[in-house]
């Protein structure tokens, strides 16, 4: 359960996030939709406590990431935009490293990695060094790494970037399963089809502000457009970034 209110963040003269508020409930998939540079990644970075907000409040399962960063991080699984795998380590070692940092003892960790290997179909490359992995393989390893400690909340930054159709489908299945199991899933994307197919709640962010939020049906209703894509364009007031 995430509650975000009036988030602001500037870097020097650049106001990356001007006013972002939304709730993301457990058992739901929430999509942050917006053109490139709208402030999605900065918002996520504030959620996982790497950036302190200039203003506003964040509550993740009742905790503030700036006050209790370590407790919040135990609840969170994060797949950042740059997957950031260690190329000289195997996929298994990459997942193991983060599992150890979460304090999982080795017998449990081994079992957990076996589970994730099945779940994400990593079997073919789990013991290969990640140097030279395809985008799809990298995303799957990054997702497994983010889920190694069974987090209640999962944050994914542009998860389907560079994925082929099959990998995208597998990822969507996984996210729906997590939702069914009562997890809170938040993903950022600029791809319309993704939110339409996946998200219970859509938060449209443009130029650092939330311009609209709600279910797909709700967004079509308030914009008066029967197509979600037209609704999106109308709500953000520009076609910029849509096709990127």
């Amino acid at each position, binding site marked *: 359960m995430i509650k975000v209110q009036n988030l602001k963040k500037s870097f020097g003269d650049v106001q990356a996030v001007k006013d972002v508020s939304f709730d993301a409930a457990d058992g739901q998939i929430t999509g942050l939709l917006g053109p490139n540079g709208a402030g999605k990644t900065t918002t996520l970075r504030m959620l996982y406590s790497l950036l302190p907000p200039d203003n506003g409040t964040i509550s993740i399962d009742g905790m503030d990431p700036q006050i209790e*960063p370590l407790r919040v991080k135990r609840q*969170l699984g994060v797949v950042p935009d*740059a*997957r*950031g795998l260690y190329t000289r380590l195997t996929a298994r070692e990459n997942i193991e*490293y983060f599992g150890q*940092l979460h304090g999982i003892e080795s017998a449990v960790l081994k079992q957990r990695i076996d589970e994730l290997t099945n779940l994400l179909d990593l079997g073919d490359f789990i013991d290969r060094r990640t140097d030279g992995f395809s985008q799809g393989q990298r995303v799957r390893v990054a997702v497994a790494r983010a889920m190694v400690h069974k987090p209640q909340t999962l944050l994914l930054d542009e998860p389907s970037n560079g994925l082929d159709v099959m990998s995208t489908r597998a990822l969507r299945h996984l996210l729906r399963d997590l939702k069914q199991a009562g997890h809170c899933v938040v993903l950022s994307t600029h791809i319309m089809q993704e939110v339409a197919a996946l998200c219970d709640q859509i938060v449209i962010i443009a130029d650092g502000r939330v311009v609209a939020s709600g279910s797909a049906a709700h967004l079509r209703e308030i914009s008066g457009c029967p197509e979600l894509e037209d609704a999106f364009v109308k709500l953000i007031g520009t076609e910029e970034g849509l096709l990127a």
Partner: protein
Amino acid sequence: MMRGIKIVALKEIRDSLRDRRTVMNTLLMGPILGPLLFIGMLTLITQKEVDKAQETLHIPVVNESLAPSLINFLELQGVVVEQPPADPEQAIRDELHSVIIRIAEDYPEKWRAGQPATVEVIADASQREISTTLARVKLLLNGYSSQIGSLRLQLRGVDPQLMRAVDVRDIDLSTPESRGALILAMLPYFIMITLFVGSMSVAIDTTAGEKERQSLEPLLINPVPRWEIMTGKLTATTLFSLASLVLTLMAFVIFVGLIPASNLNFELNIDWNLAARFWYITAPVALVAAALLTTIAAFAKSFREAQSYMSMIILIPMLPSLWLFINPVKAETWMMWIPLLSQNLLVNQHIRAESVPVLWEVISIVSTLALGLLLAISAARLYQRSKLIFSN
């Protein structure tokens, strides 16, 4: 609390050991190549000197016929007198001969008149490789001169001893060990460079490299305090530096053992015991090097940027060694408070087999560790700044 440090350190060690660049620089090139080059050059030079001092002299003599008794003397001393070239000066310039003797035209007249007869020794003294030969030739000529001088005095009934108003005696207290120490004076310099070079690759890879690969962000999302993560990285870097030092010292002991000592007039006084001493005297510098290099590399956005800073930082460990090389000082207690300088002095002191007060070693280790810890603490806090985490 220590759990995070240990996990990060172990991962960085494994990661670095799989990096060919790091392994080459830290564990192979530095520790083996450095000492090998040093010892190899040393053997070559000394071997050449020994050969020069023993080989038969082949000296062309101009106007040989004017001084038969001198030629006779030289040949008795084992010199092979050769035919002179047409232009002796040119022959020396062309390096066809190292030394040529020329008997002056008026030699016989002056000889008969009992005046100093001129013998010219033609050589280019700026050519270092001929210095031994030149010294030998001059020694022979001076020997002949004083031998004839004494005979003349005796003929006139004068005791030749009168010519020697002062009896100068060389009492050289230098031992083979201390002569070796002169050569080993370069060792502290090697040790300091090793400690810095040994930590360089890992310091860059674990900070700037991690940022470049964009793995720093996910790493910091783990529920481990940032200072623990940085301390883990520092630990790995320090251990690599220490390992590099162990290998370098081992290489020195082994290579020195390979030099045929009997040929030389000096002894390189370095054995396993002394190497172990050098290790614990200089080990605290590893922490200073690791913390310093990590701090600087943490500010860089990429591997290349970090490397460009390093070329300047590497001057730091050289400074005390170079300063001492140009301006040797006698070690005093207060100097032991200065990290890097104190290790230079202590290692030199041991090489010269001079006594080293225990207090000196204690002060040196404590002050250097203190500086290292200070730098480590400031490095450990670096990742509190979000600016250093995101490269874009």
